[in-house]
């Protein structure tokens, strides 16, 4: 048996706006059939679920996780005065501040609470390039890993031996000298922290052993990286992964199905891997997208809307439906969009307080109704 680890949170961001109506599909609802005359998941294709709902045909593997009682479906999630801009809406999700431009990411603040002195430079690991705003907070170290197998400094150095020599020289020239001044000291410390993070993370793939085969797609690769780092027990508490391409204005039926196949099979492999290593109970996953899409299709796709769906996945999760599916009734739409009925900051509060054991109020900027997706007090 593996020892009890600290709880970790894995984020799966679906960038571009996952179409809620064609993801968790109200396929029996005549209003759905009516508004989605051109871009509809038909009875033949839908994966029936319950409550008159079904899943996108690309979500077969996801359905398995649902059947294992691991998936909480959070219906109608959103925030007041929705933005239909990718950038702005994503920024709102990242900073949990819909009313103004937020300064700090919600997870960056969480990491600061988890490790106030920044003693572990890999408390948060992002799989992808650059830093998602969700993880950005001054003084909070975050490792952003494009590819775990070759992550590190001076990666453009030709030849392994040459690179080793250069790295040795690097750690020497970054060691602050006497009287260098504050700026040079700060650069030195940060550079050495970066080197340290890379040194720590590069151990993970070396230690990793598994019989699980991940599918060959970017999100599955990132999830494999999450497993590798998690198994290596490096003290990472927050993982961030991103799947792109969800902006399905055209070609939606084919695109969304393909993307869900990638995400679903990636998640299934990830869970197989967790089970094989008996390290599942410590993991909770949040799957979210910046907005849902317009109720009415445009003939070949759907345009930016509001009100969406999130998923919380994990062994500690009590599976099922949370909140309510918003009405498709024209009279209850908001500018042609679904009316959101659950504020995402409530879900963040669940995750921060009940999963990571943190003080959520300051991070999400107030008290928000929680949804309690966890099976027991965790």
């Amino acid at each position: 048996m593996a020892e009890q680890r600290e709880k970790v949170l894995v984020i799966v961001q679906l960038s571009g706006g996952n179409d809620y109506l064609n993801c968790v599909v109200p396929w029996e609802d005549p209003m759905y059939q009516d508004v989605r005359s051109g871009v509809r998941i038909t009875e033949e294709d839908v994966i029936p679920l319950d409550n008159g709902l079904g899943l996108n045909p690309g979500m077969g593997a996801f359905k398995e996780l649902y059947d294992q009682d691991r998936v909480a479906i959070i219906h109608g999630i959103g925030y007041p005065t929705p933005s239909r801009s990718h950038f702005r809406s994503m920024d709102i999700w990242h900073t949990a501040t819909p009313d103004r431009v937020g300064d700090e990411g919600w997870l960056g603040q969480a990491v600061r609470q988890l490790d106030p002195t920044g003693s572990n430079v890999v408390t948060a690991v992002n799989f992808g390039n650059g830093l998602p705003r969700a993880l950005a907070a001054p003084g909070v170290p975050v490792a952003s890993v494009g590819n775990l197998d070759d992550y590190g400094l001076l990666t453009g150095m030709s030849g392994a031996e040459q690179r080793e020599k250069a790295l040795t020289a690097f750690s020497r020239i970054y060691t602050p000298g006497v009287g260098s001044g504050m700026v040079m000291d700060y650069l030195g410390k940060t550079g050495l922290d970066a080197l340290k993070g890379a040194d720590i993370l590069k151990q993970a793939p070396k230690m990793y052993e598994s019989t699980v085969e991940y599918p060959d797609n970017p999100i599955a690769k990132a999830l494999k990286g999450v497993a590798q780092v998690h198994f290596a027990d490096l003290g990472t508490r927050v993982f961030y992964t991103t799947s792109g391409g969800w902006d399905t204005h055209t070609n939606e039926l084919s695109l969304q199905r393909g993307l869900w196949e990638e995400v679903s099979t990636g998640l299934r492999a990830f869970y197989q891997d967790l089970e094989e290593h008996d390290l599942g109970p410590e993991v909770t996953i949040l799957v979210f997208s910046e907005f849902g899409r317009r109720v009415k299709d445009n003939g070949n796709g759907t345009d930016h809307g509001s009100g969406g769906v999130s998923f919380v996945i994990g062994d500690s999760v009590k599976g099922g439906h949370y909140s309510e599916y918003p009405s498709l009734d024209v009279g209850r739409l908001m500018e042609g969009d679904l009316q959101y009925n659950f504020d995402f900051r409530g879900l963040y509060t669940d995750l921060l307080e009940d999963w990571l054991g943190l003080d959520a109020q300051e991070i999400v900027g107030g008290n928000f109704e929680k949804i309690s997706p966890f099976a027991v007090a965790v």
Partner: protein
Amino acid sequence: MATATNIGTELDLIAHLLRRTGFGSTPGELEEAGELGYEGTLDQLFNPGDADPLPVDLIRRYHADHNDLRIPPSSGSFWMYRLVTTKTPFEEKIALFWHRVFATGQTKVIQGKVMISQIDMFRKYGLGSFRELLIQLSKDPAMILWLDNQDNHKDNINENYGREILELFAMGVGNYTEDDVKECARAFTGWTIANMPYMSTKMRNNTLRPYGYIAWQFEYDESDHDDGEKTFLGETGNFTGEDVIDIICKNPATPQFIARHLYHHFVADELPVPQWPFEGPKDPEAIQLMVDAYFANDYSIGAMLRAMFESDIFKSETKRFARIKSPAEVVVGTLRLAGDFDWPTDDVYKATAACNYMGQQLLGPTSVEGWMGGDDWISTGSMVQRINFASDTIGDPDKRGVKAIVSRIADRHPSGNVEPEALVEDCLGLVGRLRVEDGTLNGLLAFVREQGDVDPSTEDGAGKITSLLQLIVSTREYQLA
């Protein structure tokens, strides 16, 4: 020896100037500037020739997406080409300066075309009269929608632009009242864009459909302009937007504020802007110098900067390497040094993305406050990006700029092998006269010694020099300008 030292001193000073007015210097650029001398170089900077960047027709032919400049990778890369290939980098430095102060973001305005037009405007007016610049800014379509001035109506004002022109663009907190904000907003009612309802809806919906974005066009809607009497900063009249700008420009707080920004960008890292109302400038004498130049030269930004660059303050040792490079300076400076982008290439997207990953998305500041700069640029994540981008970019001995460095070293050492001390000194000099601490110098020397003999005329030698350059652009000192 004495002569050599003197030349070195002036060259060091010129290199300092070129780091601030440009993106550092290639060996060729520094040689040319060295021949002109410091004053001559300054003359040329303020009377530049043709920018002669990579031609736009070539860019648009090869990058179909540079035709509409819609999304950030396209618009950012389009600017990146110019940053890297221009012969007049000072113009770009000025554009970057105003982009930071008048921070407008594609994140909200969505279409990059209007952002590129705003940058063109900064290039054209950025060194001229601040009054003219503010008028252009107030008419700039991207700025209008960025700060909601299309919603600023005669009978229902929206204060956003009226506030920010005072707080963030011209004067700073503490130099005006809330009433001034409202009166200022009233003066700018009716400053909008053509087809405002459709354009703002498309922006709000973040949609290129059906046929791509339509670039915005400034429109003055006289019927929506409040031409009633206003009292602004102590003066009363039926002020227009232009009148308000006149009043702003003659207020002594304005050049103080702009001078501090100029200092932050061109002289030495200042405190983050939000602290300015509470902490005075680091160097009040430098600020005063620029304020005097502003009033003596019809509010000329160029005159402020020229006075600064001619002063002993700017030239002093304490101002050398006194700024942390912005990501754009790291990326552009290294690409220029390597001699990249002579021809359209997909690598331009990598460069733009790298800048973004380091924390500066060109045309996409996260908020109207722009980028703070200084040590705000530095985090573990951004350091990995800075070091890897620079060392990767300079790591190809076949690149034009790398070849130029190697061949200069070969010319200086016709007999073959170069001693480690000489090699390190040459390389530091050739990347724009980088000055390093002893600890860094010793680390570089140790690295070179481990490589064994270096003969720059051979392929092996070129490879070793390239490795050394990779390490040099990875140093802490290289992060400084």
